[in-house]
């Protein structure tokens, strides 16, 4: 794996003190070419204890969650709560462009590492704080695991999901809200970087995850004082949106009017070709069809034939047909489907990353796009615990081997 010298951010250095709330931020900066140094407490970050694990072996060096969010970073260990550790960190700040942290508000200040302290060490430094509720406000000290962030930030969005007969739910597995916080933090960091480029001054970027996931438009309340009830639909009939097929589900719906040429008409044509639509469906007037003016009986008659058709095809076949017949139909992909996607393959999306200590190569999601000048790439796998201690402390900071040993014994490194 090579350094990403062509990356957009290759001149910049990032000190990454975050936990799972902010790891994605440093990963994205690293993939864009920045020299990201992940600073972990001796023994390793707590996010290493989050699964899934390589071959299900619970081990801080085998967390796939950690792997996924720490590509393109180097790693050192350092206890910034101890005076010697603090001094070393301050030395690092002098050559850093960004400091990322996700500690509870006030923690960095207490250590003497708040923005006003860092600014004195390095006026150009950009400090990015990623926390559940931001640095200020009456609830800044509330705890914010993922589900709580969904509730307090994305509550209205959760209320738009299905299954109103059950509690609101989040998207399963790892914290989505932290992914949003991490990605949005890069946006803030980049605005601050542009400002620094024109003025030379750094600043503090306060990222509140609650605000990052405040996605659901509130305009109907704002303008009309109206709150949408869970499970409320505007149309008087039940129409299927997620359909079973031979090996899973696809998303598609019957639509009339001008949109019919992207939904109903091409699908029915395909069904006709395969002899799976009756004459009634074949000759249906889609121009006049509207969910507001139809009956459940009509919908049911359409849908019965359609289910039968879908059940004879796999997701992959239906997607191929969607492209061929220009139908706005998409599969409900599983992770397997994504790995088998011809589109992602053609885009060169997947990146095989070597993990020599595991004797293996793992396939990772690569860049989110193609930049003509400055590709974003995974330049190295996630660091092992303290992997670059020697490289950074000895070679870059000039700390002697002896002192390094002493610092290790004292639990600083």
């Amino acid at each position, binding site marked *: 794996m090579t350094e990403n010298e062509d990356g957009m951010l290759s001149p910049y250095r990032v000190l990454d003190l975050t936990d799972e709330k902010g790891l994605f931020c440093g990963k994205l900066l690293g993939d864009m070419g920045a020299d990201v140094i992940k600073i972990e407490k001796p023994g390793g970050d707590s996010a290493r204890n989050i699964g899934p694990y390589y071959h299900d072996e619970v081990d801080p060096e085998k967390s796939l969650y950690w792997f996924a969010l720490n590509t393109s970073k180097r790693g050192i260990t350092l206890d910034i709560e101890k005076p010697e550790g603090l001094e070393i960190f301050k030395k690092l700040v002098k050559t850093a462009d960004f400091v990322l942290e996700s500690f509870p508000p006030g923690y960095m200040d207490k250590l003497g590492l708040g923005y006003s302290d860092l600014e004195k060490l390095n006026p150009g430094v950009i400090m990015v704080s990623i926390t559940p509720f931001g640095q200020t406000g009456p609830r800044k000290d509330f705890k*914010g695991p993922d589900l709580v962030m969904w509730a307090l930030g994305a509550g209205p969005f959760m209320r738009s999901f299905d299954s109103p007969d059950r509690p609101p739910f989040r998207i399963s597995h790892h914290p989505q809200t932290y992914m949003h916080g991490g990605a949005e933090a890069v946006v803030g960091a980049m605005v601050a970087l542009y400002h620094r480029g024109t003025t030379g001054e750094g600043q503090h970027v306060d990222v509140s995850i609650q*605000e990052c996931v405040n996605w659901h438009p509130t305009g109907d309340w704002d303008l009309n004082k109206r709150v949408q009830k869970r499970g409320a639909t505007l149309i008087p009939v039940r129409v299927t949106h997620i359909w079973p097929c031979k090996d899973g589900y696809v*998303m598609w719906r019957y639509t009339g009017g001008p949109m019919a040429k992207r939904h109903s008409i091409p699908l029915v044509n395909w069904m006709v070709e395969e002899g799976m639509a009756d004459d009634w469906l074949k000759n249906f007037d889609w121009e006049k069809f509207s969910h507001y003016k139809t009956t459940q009986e009509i919908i049911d008659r359409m849908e019965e034939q359609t289910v039968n058709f879908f059940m004879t095809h796999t997701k992959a076949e239906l997607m191929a047909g969607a492209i061929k017949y220009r139908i706005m139909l998409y599969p409900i992909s599983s992770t397997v489907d994504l790995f088998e996607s011809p*589109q992602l393959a053609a885009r060169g999306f997947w990146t095989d990353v070597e993990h020599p200590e595991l004797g293996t190569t793992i396939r990772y999601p690569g*860049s*989110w796009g193609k930049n003509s000048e400055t590709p974003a790439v995974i330049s190295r796998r996630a660091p092992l615990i303290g992997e670059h201690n020697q490289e950074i402390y000895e070679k870059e900071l000039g700390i002697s081997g002896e002192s390094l040993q002493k610092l290790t014994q004292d639990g600083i490194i």
Partner: protein
Amino acid sequence: MGKLPLEGIKVADFTWVWTGPTTTKVLADFGATVVKIESDKRLDVWRIQPPFKDDVPGPDRGAIFNSINTGKLSVTIDLSQPKGKELAKKFVAWADIVTDNYAGGAMERMGLGYEALKEIKPDIIMMSSALMGQTGPWHDSPGYGDQLSAISGLHEISGWPDRIPGEIGFYTDFIAPRFNALTILAALDYRRRTGKGQYLDIAQHQGSVHFIAPILLDYAVNKRVATRQGNLDDYAAPHGCYRCQGEDRWCAIVVRTDEEWQSFCDVLRNPAWTKDPKFATLKSRKENEDELNKMVDEWTSNQSDEDVMVTLQSAGVPAGRVGNTEDQMENDPHLKFRNFYQEREHPEIGKYRPPRQPCVLSKTPCEIKRAPLIGEHNEYVFKELLCLTDEEIEELIIDGIIQ
């Protein structure tokens, strides 16, 4: 108000619907001059779609349009005519950044592909945010955020294990703009340093798939296919949304550590059931989670969601009420304190409160200005920004290019 960080940056914005406008809102809110290039013949979807102020339709009355287009200038030109395309090219000559979010290949077909733009302005930064990107067998496949969430693996892991995949709305619409904005801004810094512009061919699909990276690796390594788990979490119990007093009121509660469990029990005043060994450890609570959830529901169901949240958080137990839009805008003292929604005056809809950007920059915060009326800035933009003469403008109006 001081100078905004992106002041002087010029954006010719061909985007519409949600992801594109949300992307360029970032640039506008931080001070860039963003000209939204619209057409009377093909109005932005959110100028046509409800909700409208007082339910009276009108291109300037849409709640969503006005919320995600703050700070932009609007011009209306007819891009379908050759002279309209010529005018579009004048925007390119003026701009630092050109943005679009059409299906792959659309700008190219309009004669506004990157190569053409580069001819006009060698250091232009062009960002295309197509669903699937500009290349590959599915590149020109159009779609909306719900469909993209489906194909990006997000529906599969949403909802209840005993039901079909859950409906999670236009989720990826909230992911794509972040990748768009951060890439544009990084490219802007790159251009500042090197003088080089570039083409950013972003695939909304690829950014969205990043949001499930850990479970992708789980398949790559362990061949395990992730599916939906309701509200379950491997590392916490209780972990769910629990029923509270009132109609459809819920509070999320998350208990991860022994310490949080002890605090939780203390808040409940340690009723007998909490002493049962089957709830003693995270492992045993996970094993008896249905029963545990029933007990928690019993405790929450005769209290308000707000009380449950505040009592638990005060004791160090993570909790949050599942707010609706009213709660979010009126009953969240924290968002209020942080001035998240900012009231502005709009000539058509009166007072309204669009959200600011979620990043607060200590020296250069964003500034929210109301969204533009359709074609509101035709005169200003063509005269002052593109420096066309009165005669040229008149001719374009007569030809129906400027609408």
